[in-house]
Protein backbone atom coordinates (compact mmCIF):
# COMPACT_ATOMS: atom_id res chain seq x y z
CA UNK A 1 0.00 0.00 0.00
CA UNK A 2 2.87 2.27 0.92
CA UNK A 3 4.61 1.77 -2.41
CA UNK A 4 1.35 2.47 -4.24
CA UNK A 5 1.05 5.83 -2.50
CA UNK A 6 4.72 6.56 -3.01
CA UNK A 7 4.27 5.67 -6.64
CA UNK A 8 1.54 8.22 -7.11
CA UNK A 9 3.55 10.92 -5.34
CA UNK A 10 6.62 10.13 -7.41
CA UNK A 11 4.59 10.04 -10.60
CA UNK A 12 3.43 13.59 -10.02
CA UNK A 13 6.94 14.70 -9.14
CA UNK A 14 8.24 13.08 -12.33
CA UNK A 15 5.58 14.75 -14.41
CA UNK A 16 6.23 18.13 -12.84
CA UNK A 17 10.00 17.88 -13.35
CA UNK A 18 10.04 16.01 -16.61
CA UNK A 19 13.75 15.22 -16.99
CA UNK A 20 15.59 14.60 -20.22
CA UNK A 21 15.92 10.82 -19.75
CA UNK A 22 12.27 10.28 -18.92
CA UNK A 23 11.18 12.52 -21.74
CA UNK A 24 13.38 10.50 -24.12
CA UNK A 25 11.78 7.26 -22.95
CA UNK A 26 8.24 8.58 -23.40
CA UNK A 27 9.08 10.09 -26.77
CA UNK A 28 10.60 6.83 -28.03
CA UNK A 29 7.53 4.88 -26.88
CA UNK A 30 5.28 7.18 -28.86
CA UNK A 31 7.61 7.19 -31.86
CA UNK A 32 7.89 3.39 -32.05
CA UNK A 33 4.18 2.70 -31.47
CA UNK A 34 3.07 5.64 -33.62
CA UNK A 35 5.26 4.53 -36.55
CA UNK A 36 4.02 0.95 -36.23
CA UNK A 37 0.46 2.26 -36.24
CA UNK A 38 0.98 4.42 -39.34
CA UNK A 39 2.56 1.52 -41.25
CA UNK A 40 -0.05 -1.00 -40.17
CA UNK A 41 -2.87 1.40 -41.11
CA UNK A 42 -1.31 2.06 -44.52
CA UNK A 43 -1.20 -1.70 -45.14
CA UNK A 44 -4.18 -2.85 -43.08
CA UNK A 45 -6.83 -0.45 -44.37
CA UNK A 46 -6.48 -1.51 -48.04
CA UNK A 47 -6.25 -5.15 -46.95
CA UNK A 48 -9.36 -4.73 -44.79
CA UNK A 49 -11.20 -3.03 -47.66
CA UNK A 50 -10.27 -5.90 -49.94
CA UNK A 51 -11.54 -8.48 -47.44
CA UNK A 52 -14.65 -6.44 -46.77
CA UNK A 53 -15.68 -5.59 -50.31
CA UNK A 54 -14.37 -8.21 -52.71
CA UNK A 55 -15.47 -11.80 -53.09
CA UNK A 56 -12.56 -14.05 -54.04
CA UNK A 57 -11.58 -17.69 -53.52
CA UNK A 58 -9.94 -18.21 -50.13
CA UNK A 59 -11.56 -15.09 -48.65
CA UNK A 60 -13.05 -16.95 -45.68
CA UNK A 61 -9.72 -18.60 -44.97
CA UNK A 62 -8.01 -15.20 -45.15
CA UNK A 63 -10.51 -13.68 -42.70
CA UNK A 64 -10.10 -16.59 -40.24
CA UNK A 65 -6.33 -16.29 -40.49
CA UNK A 66 -6.34 -12.56 -39.83
CA UNK A 67 -8.70 -13.03 -36.87
CA UNK A 68 -6.37 -15.69 -35.45
CA UNK A 69 -3.34 -13.44 -35.88
CA UNK A 70 -5.07 -10.77 -33.77
CA UNK A 71 -4.18 -12.91 -30.78
CA UNK A 72 -0.48 -13.32 -31.62
CA UNK A 73 1.54 -13.53 -28.41
CA UNK A 74 4.04 -10.61 -28.43
CA UNK A 75 6.92 -12.82 -27.30
CA UNK A 76 6.37 -15.12 -30.25
CA UNK A 77 6.44 -12.13 -32.60
CA UNK A 78 9.57 -10.92 -30.80
CA UNK A 79 11.22 -14.30 -31.27
CA UNK A 80 10.23 -14.41 -34.94
CA UNK A 81 11.57 -10.93 -35.68
CA UNK A 82 14.71 -11.72 -33.63
CA UNK A 83 15.44 -14.80 -35.75
CA UNK A 84 14.75 -12.80 -38.90
CA UNK A 85 17.04 -9.92 -37.97
CA UNK A 86 19.78 -11.70 -36.00
CA UNK A 87 23.17 -11.83 -37.65
CA UNK A 88 22.63 -15.36 -38.97
CA UNK A 89 19.04 -14.64 -39.99
CA UNK A 90 17.84 -13.95 -43.55
CA UNK A 91 17.71 -10.18 -42.92
CA UNK A 92 20.71 -10.08 -40.60
CA UNK A 93 22.78 -8.11 -43.11
CA UNK A 94 20.59 -5.07 -42.46
CA UNK A 95 21.95 -4.79 -38.92
CA UNK A 96 18.59 -3.80 -37.48
CA UNK A 97 18.52 -5.97 -34.35
CA UNK A 98 18.49 -3.99 -31.08
CA UNK A 99 17.37 -0.82 -32.82
CA UNK A 100 14.15 1.21 -32.76
CA UNK A 101 13.55 0.02 -36.37
CA UNK A 102 13.41 -3.59 -35.19
CA UNK A 103 10.88 -2.57 -32.52
CA UNK A 104 8.74 -0.84 -35.16
CA UNK A 105 8.83 -4.00 -37.30
CA UNK A 106 7.72 -6.16 -34.36
CA UNK A 107 4.90 -3.82 -33.34
CA UNK A 108 3.73 -3.48 -36.93
CA UNK A 109 3.34 -7.27 -37.08
CA UNK A 110 1.28 -7.11 -33.89
CA UNK A 111 -0.90 -4.20 -35.01
CA UNK A 112 -1.46 -5.20 -38.63
CA UNK A 113 -3.93 -8.08 -38.05
CA UNK A 114 -5.95 -5.92 -35.63
CA UNK A 115 -6.20 -3.01 -38.06
CA UNK A 116 -6.98 -5.34 -40.98
CA UNK A 117 -9.63 -7.42 -39.21
CA UNK A 118 -11.42 -4.51 -37.54
CA UNK A 119 -11.31 -2.33 -40.69
CA UNK A 120 -12.71 -5.21 -42.69
CA UNK A 121 -15.57 -5.72 -40.24
CA UNK A 122 -16.28 -1.96 -40.14
CA UNK A 123 -16.48 -1.94 -43.94
CA UNK A 124 -18.57 -5.13 -44.18
CA UNK A 125 -21.11 -3.60 -41.80
CA UNK A 126 -21.80 -0.61 -44.04
CA UNK A 127 -25.28 -0.91 -45.56
CA UNK A 128 -24.90 -2.09 -49.20
CA UNK A 129 -27.30 0.69 -50.18
CA UNK A 130 -24.45 3.19 -49.68
CA UNK A 131 -22.47 1.59 -52.46
CA UNK A 132 -25.55 1.32 -54.66
CA UNK A 133 -26.43 4.98 -54.03
CA UNK A 134 -22.93 6.06 -55.00
CA UNK A 135 -23.30 4.04 -58.20
CA UNK A 136 -26.68 5.56 -59.07
CA UNK A 137 -25.14 9.00 -58.69
CA UNK A 138 -22.44 8.17 -61.23
CA UNK A 139 -19.54 6.81 -59.20
CA UNK A 140 -16.84 4.72 -60.85
CA UNK A 141 -16.00 1.43 -59.07
CA UNK A 142 -13.07 3.18 -57.37
CA UNK A 143 -15.27 6.05 -56.20
CA UNK A 144 -17.81 3.54 -54.89
CA UNK A 145 -15.09 1.93 -52.77
CA UNK A 146 -13.99 5.31 -51.44
CA UNK A 147 -17.60 6.17 -50.57
CA UNK A 148 -17.92 2.95 -48.54
CA UNK A 149 -14.57 3.45 -46.78
CA UNK A 150 -15.49 7.04 -45.94
CA UNK A 151 -18.78 5.80 -44.52
CA UNK A 152 -16.84 3.35 -42.32
CA UNK A 153 -14.40 6.02 -41.12
CA UNK A 154 -15.43 5.92 -37.47
CA UNK A 155 -15.22 2.13 -37.37
CA UNK A 156 -11.78 2.44 -38.94
CA UNK A 157 -10.81 4.89 -36.22
CA UNK A 158 -11.92 2.33 -33.62
CA UNK A 159 -9.66 -0.21 -35.31
CA UNK A 160 -6.72 2.17 -34.97
CA UNK A 161 -7.57 2.89 -31.32
CA UNK A 162 -7.64 -0.85 -30.57
CA UNK A 163 -4.30 -1.40 -32.30
CA UNK A 164 -2.81 1.58 -30.47
CA UNK A 165 -3.86 0.10 -27.13
CA UNK A 166 -2.25 -3.17 -28.07
CA UNK A 167 1.15 -1.79 -29.10
CA UNK A 168 1.48 0.86 -26.39
CA UNK A 169 0.92 -1.78 -23.68
CA UNK A 170 3.15 -4.38 -25.24
CA UNK A 171 6.53 -5.35 -23.75
CA UNK A 172 7.41 -8.88 -24.85
CA UNK A 173 8.25 -8.22 -28.47
CA UNK A 174 10.14 -4.95 -28.10
CA UNK A 175 12.15 -6.28 -25.18
CA UNK A 176 13.41 -9.19 -27.32
CA UNK A 177 14.20 -7.23 -30.48
CA UNK A 178 15.04 -3.87 -28.91
CA UNK A 179 17.07 -5.11 -25.97
CA UNK A 180 16.08 -2.27 -23.61
CA UNK A 181 19.28 -0.29 -24.23
CA UNK A 182 19.31 2.89 -22.15
CA UNK A 183 19.00 6.02 -24.26
CA UNK A 184 18.52 4.03 -27.47
CA UNK A 185 15.80 1.39 -27.31
CA UNK A 186 14.45 1.86 -23.80
CA UNK A 187 10.73 2.64 -23.79
CA UNK A 188 8.13 2.98 -21.04
CA UNK A 189 7.03 -0.65 -20.82
CA UNK A 190 10.57 -2.05 -20.91
CA UNK A 191 11.65 0.47 -18.25
CA UNK A 192 8.75 -0.60 -16.04
CA UNK A 193 9.80 -4.25 -16.39
CA UNK A 194 13.42 -3.37 -15.62
CA UNK A 195 12.70 -1.12 -12.63
CA UNK A 196 10.34 -3.73 -11.16
CA UNK A 197 13.14 -6.31 -11.43
CA UNK A 198 15.47 -3.91 -9.63
CA UNK A 199 12.90 -3.46 -6.85
CA UNK A 200 12.44 0.17 -7.83
CA UNK A 201 8.67 -0.04 -7.45
CA UNK A 202 7.96 3.69 -7.08
CA UNK A 203 9.61 4.59 -10.37
CA UNK A 204 7.99 1.60 -12.11
CA UNK A 205 4.61 2.58 -10.78
CA UNK A 206 5.12 6.23 -11.69
CA UNK A 207 5.95 5.22 -15.24
CA UNK A 208 2.89 3.00 -15.31
CA UNK A 209 0.72 5.94 -14.31
CA UNK A 210 2.27 8.15 -16.98
CA UNK A 211 1.71 5.43 -19.57
CA UNK A 212 -1.93 5.18 -18.59
CA UNK A 213 -2.35 8.93 -18.68
CA UNK A 214 -0.91 9.13 -22.20
CA UNK A 215 -3.19 6.33 -23.37
CA UNK A 216 -6.13 7.99 -21.68
CA UNK A 217 -5.45 11.34 -23.36
CA UNK A 218 -5.07 9.86 -26.83
CA UNK A 219 -8.13 7.64 -26.43
CA UNK A 220 -10.21 10.55 -25.17
CA UNK A 221 -9.25 12.67 -28.16
CA UNK A 222 -10.08 9.89 -30.59
CA UNK A 223 -13.33 9.20 -28.77
CA UNK A 224 -14.37 12.85 -29.10
CA UNK A 225 -13.75 12.67 -32.85
CA UNK A 226 -15.81 9.49 -32.98
CA UNK A 227 -18.69 10.99 -30.99
CA UNK A 228 -18.82 13.96 -33.34
CA UNK A 229 -19.22 11.60 -36.26
CA UNK A 230 -21.97 9.33 -35.06
CA UNK A 231 -25.11 11.33 -35.59
CA UNK A 232 -28.12 10.90 -33.32
CA UNK A 233 -30.88 8.76 -34.74
CA UNK A 234 -28.52 6.69 -36.80
Amino acid at each position, binding site marked *: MDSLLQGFIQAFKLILHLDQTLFGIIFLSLKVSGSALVISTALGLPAGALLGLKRFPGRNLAISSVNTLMGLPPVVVGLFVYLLLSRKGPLGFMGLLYSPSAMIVAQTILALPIVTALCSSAIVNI*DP*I*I*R*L*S*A*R*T*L*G*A*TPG*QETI*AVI*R*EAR*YGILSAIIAAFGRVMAEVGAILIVGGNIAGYTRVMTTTIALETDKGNFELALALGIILLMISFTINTLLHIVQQK*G*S*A*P*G*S
Partner: protein
Amino acid sequence: MKLVATNITKLYGGRTILSDCSYSFSTAGTYVLIGPNGCGKSTFLRICSLLEQPDAGELLFTAEGKQLPHDIDLRRRMTLVLPRTGVFNATVFNNVAYGLKIRGMDSGLLHEKVIKALEVVGLSHRKKQNARTLSSGETQRLGLARALAIEPEILFLDEPTASVDEKNTTIIESIIQNLKKDARTMVIMTTHDKEQADRLADTLLLMKEGIIAVRNL
Protein backbone atom coordinates in the same frame (compact mmCIF):
# COMPACT_ATOMS: atom_id res chain seq x y z
CA MET B 1 -31.76 11.23 -75.28
CA LYS B 2 -33.89 8.27 -76.31
CA LEU B 3 -34.01 4.83 -74.78
CA VAL B 4 -35.20 1.74 -76.58
CA ALA B 5 -35.46 -1.46 -74.58
CA THR B 6 -35.81 -4.58 -76.70
CA ASN B 7 -36.76 -8.04 -75.41
CA ILE B 8 -35.30 -7.47 -71.94
CA THR B 9 -35.31 -10.73 -70.00
CA LYS B 10 -34.14 -11.25 -66.44
CA LEU B 11 -34.15 -14.32 -64.26
CA TYR B 12 -33.47 -14.61 -60.55
CA GLY B 13 -32.64 -18.09 -59.35
CA GLY B 14 -34.46 -19.69 -62.25
CA ARG B 15 -37.56 -17.55 -61.81
CA THR B 16 -38.41 -15.26 -64.71
CA ILE B 17 -38.85 -11.67 -63.53
CA LEU B 18 -38.90 -9.99 -66.93
CA SER B 19 -39.66 -11.75 -70.17
CA ASP B 20 -39.16 -10.05 -73.53
CA CYS B 21 -39.89 -6.62 -72.15
CA SER B 22 -39.81 -4.01 -74.88
CA TYR B 23 -40.58 -0.33 -74.93
CA SER B 24 -39.37 2.75 -76.68
CA PHE B 25 -38.99 5.84 -74.50
CA SER B 26 -38.63 8.37 -77.27
CA THR B 27 -40.26 11.61 -76.19
CA ALA B 28 -39.72 13.76 -73.14
CA GLY B 29 -42.33 13.58 -70.44
CA THR B 30 -43.28 11.37 -67.54
CA TYR B 31 -43.68 7.64 -67.99
CA VAL B 32 -45.33 5.84 -65.11
CA LEU B 33 -45.06 2.09 -64.75
CA ILE B 34 -47.74 0.54 -62.62
CA GLY B 35 -48.32 -3.03 -61.65
CA PRO B 36 -48.63 -5.31 -58.64
CA ASN B 37 -45.73 -5.88 -56.24
CA GLY B 38 -43.09 -8.23 -57.59
CA CYS B 39 -44.13 -7.79 -61.21
CA GLY B 40 -40.64 -6.68 -62.22
CA LYS B 41 -41.03 -2.87 -62.23
CA SER B 42 -37.97 -2.21 -60.07
CA THR B 43 -35.84 -4.74 -61.92
CA PHE B 44 -36.77 -3.10 -65.21
CA LEU B 45 -35.74 0.30 -63.84
CA ARG B 46 -32.42 -1.01 -62.52
CA ILE B 47 -31.64 -2.59 -65.88
CA CYS B 48 -32.63 0.55 -67.83
CA SER B 49 -30.42 2.69 -65.56
CA LEU B 50 -27.49 0.30 -66.25
CA LEU B 51 -27.16 -0.82 -62.64
CA GLU B 52 -27.89 -4.42 -63.60
CA GLN B 53 -27.27 -6.51 -66.68
CA PRO B 54 -30.21 -8.20 -68.38
CA ASP B 55 -29.89 -11.93 -69.11
CA ALA B 56 -31.11 -11.29 -72.64
CA GLY B 57 -32.26 -8.34 -74.69
CA GLU B 58 -30.80 -5.02 -75.63
CA LEU B 59 -30.82 -1.43 -74.44
CA LEU B 60 -30.21 1.23 -77.02
CA PHE B 61 -29.47 4.79 -75.95
CA THR B 62 -29.33 7.39 -78.69
CA ALA B 63 -28.77 11.14 -78.73
CA GLU B 64 -28.74 13.30 -81.84
CA GLY B 65 -29.09 10.21 -83.97
CA LYS B 66 -25.97 8.60 -82.55
CA GLN B 67 -25.86 5.42 -80.52
CA LEU B 68 -24.22 5.87 -77.12
CA PRO B 69 -21.84 3.27 -75.67
CA HIS B 70 -22.78 1.87 -72.25
CA ASP B 71 -19.97 3.57 -70.34
CA ILE B 72 -19.52 5.80 -67.32
CA ASP B 73 -20.29 8.91 -69.42
CA LEU B 74 -23.69 7.49 -70.32
CA ARG B 75 -24.35 6.37 -66.74
CA ARG B 76 -23.64 9.94 -65.60
CA ARG B 77 -26.34 11.35 -67.89
CA MET B 78 -29.04 9.57 -65.90
CA THR B 79 -29.75 8.46 -62.35
CA LEU B 80 -32.06 6.24 -60.38
CA VAL B 81 -33.65 7.36 -57.12
CA LEU B 82 -33.98 4.28 -54.94
CA PRO B 83 -37.14 3.59 -52.91
CA ARG B 84 -34.96 3.83 -49.78
CA THR B 85 -32.35 6.58 -49.84
CA GLY B 86 -28.83 5.45 -48.90
CA VAL B 87 -27.91 8.44 -46.77
CA PHE B 88 -24.20 9.23 -46.46
CA ASN B 89 -23.05 10.07 -42.95
CA ALA B 90 -22.41 13.72 -43.85
CA THR B 91 -24.30 16.99 -43.96
CA VAL B 92 -27.37 17.41 -46.16
CA PHE B 93 -25.30 19.74 -48.36
CA ASN B 94 -22.52 17.20 -48.85
CA ASN B 95 -25.01 14.43 -49.61
CA VAL B 96 -26.44 16.48 -52.43
CA ALA B 97 -22.97 17.58 -53.57
CA TYR B 98 -21.73 13.99 -53.90
CA GLY B 99 -22.76 13.39 -57.51
CA LEU B 100 -21.18 16.68 -58.57
CA LYS B 101 -17.96 16.13 -56.60
CA ILE B 102 -17.28 12.77 -58.25
CA ARG B 103 -17.73 14.50 -61.60
CA GLY B 104 -14.93 16.87 -60.62
CA MET B 105 -17.07 20.01 -60.70
CA ASP B 106 -15.43 23.19 -59.38
CA SER B 107 -16.71 24.36 -56.02
CA GLY B 108 -18.39 27.58 -57.15
CA LEU B 109 -20.68 25.94 -59.67
CA LEU B 110 -21.18 22.96 -57.35
CA HIS B 111 -22.35 25.22 -54.54
CA GLU B 112 -24.81 26.95 -56.83
CA LYS B 113 -26.31 23.68 -58.12
CA VAL B 114 -26.59 22.12 -54.65
CA ILE B 115 -28.36 25.18 -53.27
CA LYS B 116 -30.76 25.13 -56.22
CA ALA B 117 -31.56 21.43 -55.76
CA LEU B 118 -32.13 21.92 -52.04
CA GLU B 119 -34.51 24.79 -52.75
CA VAL B 120 -36.50 22.65 -55.19
CA VAL B 121 -37.11 19.96 -52.55
CA GLY B 122 -37.51 22.45 -49.69
CA LEU B 123 -34.52 21.38 -47.63
CA SER B 124 -32.42 24.57 -47.80
CA HIS B 125 -32.87 25.23 -44.08
CA ARG B 126 -31.42 21.80 -43.29
CA LYS B 127 -28.26 22.04 -45.40
CA LYS B 128 -25.79 22.09 -42.50
CA GLN B 129 -27.52 19.32 -40.57
CA ASN B 130 -26.29 15.72 -40.59
CA ALA B 131 -28.44 13.99 -43.18
CA ARG B 132 -29.02 10.99 -40.92
CA THR B 133 -31.12 13.17 -38.60
CA LEU B 134 -33.76 13.88 -41.25
CA SER B 135 -37.29 12.46 -41.03
CA SER B 136 -38.25 9.73 -43.49
CA GLY B 137 -40.11 12.16 -45.74
CA GLU B 138 -37.19 14.57 -45.74
CA THR B 139 -34.80 11.68 -46.43
CA GLN B 140 -36.79 10.76 -49.51
CA ARG B 141 -36.66 14.38 -50.67
CA LEU B 142 -32.91 14.35 -50.04
CA GLY B 143 -32.65 11.39 -52.40
CA LEU B 144 -34.54 13.40 -54.99
CA ALA B 145 -32.33 16.47 -54.46
CA ARG B 146 -29.17 14.36 -54.95
CA ALA B 147 -30.57 13.21 -58.27
CA LEU B 148 -31.78 16.66 -59.39
CA ALA B 149 -28.41 18.26 -58.60
CA ILE B 150 -26.73 16.27 -61.36
CA GLU B 151 -29.40 17.38 -63.85
CA PRO B 152 -30.00 13.97 -65.41
CA GLU B 153 -31.41 13.60 -68.89
CA ILE B 154 -33.30 10.52 -67.72
CA LEU B 155 -34.51 10.43 -64.14
CA PHE B 156 -35.63 7.01 -62.91
CA LEU B 157 -37.76 7.04 -59.77
CA ASP B 158 -38.48 3.73 -58.08
CA GLU B 159 -41.57 4.08 -55.85
CA PRO B 160 -40.66 7.65 -54.83
CA THR B 161 -43.47 7.95 -52.31
CA ALA B 162 -43.78 4.38 -51.04
CA SER B 163 -42.57 5.08 -47.52
CA VAL B 164 -43.60 8.69 -46.87
CA ASP B 165 -46.63 10.43 -45.40
CA GLU B 166 -49.32 12.31 -47.28
CA LYS B 167 -47.72 15.72 -46.87
CA ASN B 168 -44.40 14.57 -48.30
CA THR B 169 -46.18 12.67 -51.06
CA THR B 170 -47.81 15.93 -52.16
CA ILE B 171 -44.45 17.73 -52.10
CA ILE B 172 -42.72 14.99 -54.09
CA GLU B 173 -45.52 14.82 -56.64
CA SER B 174 -45.38 18.56 -57.22
CA ILE B 175 -41.59 18.34 -57.74
CA ILE B 176 -42.19 15.68 -60.40
CA GLN B 177 -44.92 17.82 -61.98
CA ASN B 178 -42.54 20.79 -62.12
CA LEU B 179 -39.94 18.69 -63.92
CA LYS B 180 -42.28 18.58 -66.91
CA LYS B 181 -41.64 22.26 -67.50
CA ASP B 182 -38.01 21.34 -68.06
CA ALA B 183 -38.34 19.49 -71.35
CA ARG B 184 -34.78 18.18 -71.08
CA THR B 185 -35.56 15.61 -68.45
CA MET B 186 -37.38 12.38 -69.16
CA VAL B 187 -38.92 10.85 -66.03
CA ILE B 188 -39.50 7.11 -65.84
CA MET B 189 -41.06 6.09 -62.55
CA THR B 190 -42.80 3.18 -60.88
CA THR B 191 -45.62 3.28 -58.41
CA HIS B 192 -48.24 0.94 -57.09
CA ASP B 193 -50.60 3.86 -56.44
CA LYS B 194 -53.08 3.99 -59.30
CA GLU B 195 -54.31 7.49 -58.48
CA GLN B 196 -50.79 8.86 -58.30
CA ALA B 197 -50.08 7.30 -61.68
CA ASP B 198 -53.11 9.06 -63.15
CA ARG B 199 -52.02 12.38 -61.65
CA LEU B 200 -48.45 12.25 -62.94
CA ALA B 201 -48.32 10.21 -66.13
CA ASP B 202 -48.02 11.48 -69.65
CA THR B 203 -47.73 7.86 -70.66
CA LEU B 204 -49.08 5.13 -68.46
CA LEU B 205 -47.48 1.72 -68.73
CA LEU B 206 -48.89 -1.39 -67.20
CA MET B 207 -46.55 -4.13 -66.20
CA LYS B 208 -47.94 -7.58 -65.63
CA GLU B 209 -46.01 -10.82 -65.28
CA GLY B 210 -42.90 -9.21 -66.69
CA ILE B 211 -44.44 -7.71 -69.82
CA ILE B 212 -45.17 -4.04 -70.54
CA ALA B 213 -48.45 -2.91 -72.06
CA VAL B 214 -49.42 0.68 -72.88
CA ARG B 215 -52.57 1.91 -71.23
CA ASN B 216 -54.46 4.75 -72.73
CA LEU B 217 -55.12 7.63 -70.41
